[in-house]
């Protein structure tokens, strides 16, 4: 049995966007949705994180940052893209400085579309990405981009 599912630590990074998804992420992690009961914890250290939660799109300034954060996380790890911008660039995808969605830089394991998705769908999405993370932990952590 893997203990990965019992204690997922989440690293949140807000990319290029309006920050609306970020507000919803913070709302989802407050006490009302019981994520802490399932072992979820927000961490701000990539070296301790299991799940990389990304909002907003990729631009030329943050692409290396996202890549570095992903590379600093140890295996097994999973990536969750939250909101339309993180999924495919969303509202800003035609902007000159926007490269696109998060899959341009890292392998995204699960997507939660919406502009912005509500905390309920975020909680459901986190539980789904947990399945992917658990699978990787059980298989011995294969998650290269």
């Amino acid at each position, binding site marked *: 049995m893997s*203990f990965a599912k*019992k204690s997922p630590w989440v690293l949140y990074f807000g990319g290029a966007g309006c920050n609306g998804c970020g507000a919803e992420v913070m709302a989802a992690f407050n*006490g009302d949705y019981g994520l802490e*009961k399932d*072992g979820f914890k927000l961490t701000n250290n990539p070296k*301790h994180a*299991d799940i990389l939660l990304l909002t907003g799109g990729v631009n030329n300034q943050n692409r290396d940052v996202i890549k570095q954060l992903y590379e600093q996380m*140890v295996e*097994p790890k999973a990536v969750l893209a939250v909101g339309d911008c993180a999924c495919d660039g969303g509202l800003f995808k035609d902007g000159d400085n926007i490269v696109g969605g998060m899959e341009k830089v890292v392998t995204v394991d699960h997507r939660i579309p919406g502009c912005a998705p509500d905390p309920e769908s975020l909680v459901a999405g986190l539980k789904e990405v947990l399945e992917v993370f658990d699978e990787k*932990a059980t298989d011995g952590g294969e998650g290269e981009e």
Partner: protein
Amino acid sequence: MITKILMIVAYLLIAPVAGCIFEGLGRMLSAVLEGRAGATLLQPYYDVRKLLEKDSMSPSPHQDLYLLIHMIFTLAAGGVFFAGGDLMLVVVLQITATAFAVTAAYSSGSPYSVLGARRKMLMMMACQPMIIATAVGFYIYKDTFGVRELAGSGGMALLPMAGLFLGFIYIMTIKLEAAPFDLGASGSGIHELVSGTETEYTGRTLGVMKMMGWYERVTMFGILFLFLSNGRVTGYIVGILVCAAVYFLQVIGGGVLSRVKPDFALRSAWVITIALGIVNLFVLQFVIEGV
């Protein structure tokens, strides 16, 4: 001899369980105080088991070696204590263990880790005089450094060593880096140093370090227990109850008080060491012992 070995084995097996359960209870209590649903009792256990399943990567070839030495000295300190050995030796082993944890944090070269290490060193300077004064106090009162004799004979040391007892509780909070003194690893709430000394520990290494924290906590509460223990069942029961009460008081204190600055930790610790510890030592030597 066999009793000593059994006590060491019992310490190695029971200390992480006790440390884990107490941390779980502490987290539940602070969640209740903060009005959150909070995590379950076994969450610290799940965290460590998950960390042990993860890979780990080390930024420097020396870090793992220093952490291994830290681990050996932490376990040795607890082992000597619970085998009934010399209290002063326990104190020295603990200082060495902390010194290697600081060296490990320095060796990574990562800015947050180095800043955390600096703070951890200040904390070490803050609390060691009081811990040594406590050991000396026990010697003056009971004429021995032997933990077995201290725990199993004579009267309760609480009243004649009241100053040292209060000071030790204060210093213990600093030593265990419990809030509001969680300066080195920036454990809770405010993360101005990311994770301080723990920034560069990953996966298995972090899991082992968390377990070492449990071992260290049990040893420190063991020393606190010596103040209450008088070789009789009542003393043991009172000792365990007081240790539990002090732990929960620390959890409540951590929730209520905001994090202090390292300067304050150092200054207040030394003032308390002099005002409560050293004065108590003089009273013990010249008034109670009458020499």
